């Protein structure tokens, strides 16, 4: 099994919350996120309801942030969630994760852990089997930016 390499040079400054940002400057921007969402939606306009993005509003460490996306759906053959995509506006890349569900998923929901390079808005977009779209956005505050090694 693989365990993340743990020996790295001690570089950070500051007190218990060390302060040196070792990431490259973030590459994603609100515009890059909008473009990625546009590519996913194909230009359709999502409804701002029927979907919930659950994420802590105040994040202790951007290296691991739990998120749950829940989409209201009967999850039948005729009417189910086909795909959910999560986007961000401040990491190096706008894409976070995409999942494809099936009627046998039984719930339009999944949970994972993501990285956030600083405070920003996270957007989840769901595409339903009838082609309709739903969207939820949450602004989160990250107390300690990700990608620092101390």
């Amino acid at each position: 099994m693989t365990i993340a390499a743990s020996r790295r040079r001690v570089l950070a400054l500051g007190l218990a919350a060390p302060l040196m940002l070792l990431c490259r400057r973030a590459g994603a921007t609100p515009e890059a996120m909008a473009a990625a969402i546009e590519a996913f939606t194909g230009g359709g306009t999502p409804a701002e309801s029927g979907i919930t993005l659950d994420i802590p509003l105040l994040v202790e460490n951007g290296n691991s942030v739990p998120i749950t996306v829940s989409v209201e759906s009967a999850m039948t053959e005729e009417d189910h969630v086909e795909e959910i995509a999560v986007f961000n506006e401040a990491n190096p890349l706008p894409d976070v994760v995409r999942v494809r569900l099936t009627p046998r998923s039984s719930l339009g929901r999944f949970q994972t852990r993501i990285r956030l390079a600083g405070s920003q808005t996270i957007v989840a977009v769901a595409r339903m089997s009838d082609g309709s779209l739903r969207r939820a956005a949450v602004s989160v505050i990250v107390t300690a930016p990700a990608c620092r090694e101390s």
Partner: protein
Amino acid sequence: MRRVVAAAAAICAAGGVCAGEGMPPLTSTPGDPERGRAIVIDRETGLCLLCHSGPFPEVTFQGDLAPSLEGVGARLDAAALRLRLVDSRRVNPDTIMPPYHSTDNLNRVGAEWRGKPILSAQQIEDVVAFLATMTEVAQ
């Protein structure tokens, strides 16, 4: 490296805040309040808001180990502010405030920092100039 020598500091009784104590300017160039503000809010230069809080809307997370900086310019004059920045231990030997312009009696300072004060004399003047403008207290 030249030892940083503080001039004319009135040493007060332990823990006490004495009237009239202070320190004259460290440089002949007056401090720049704008540069001082930038130092105060910077987490790697001034480090102030790790422990203090204050009216700095752009800094989301501020500390609560030390008093708010709001109105500090009304409580202390420039000379008193300077003394506390240069070496707060002269006012209170048990203070947790780092000595910003003194390298006296420090222990195991990391190689990168050894013999160097946290802020230069001019940076101290900039911060003093800025803090002295902080005379308002929100109602």
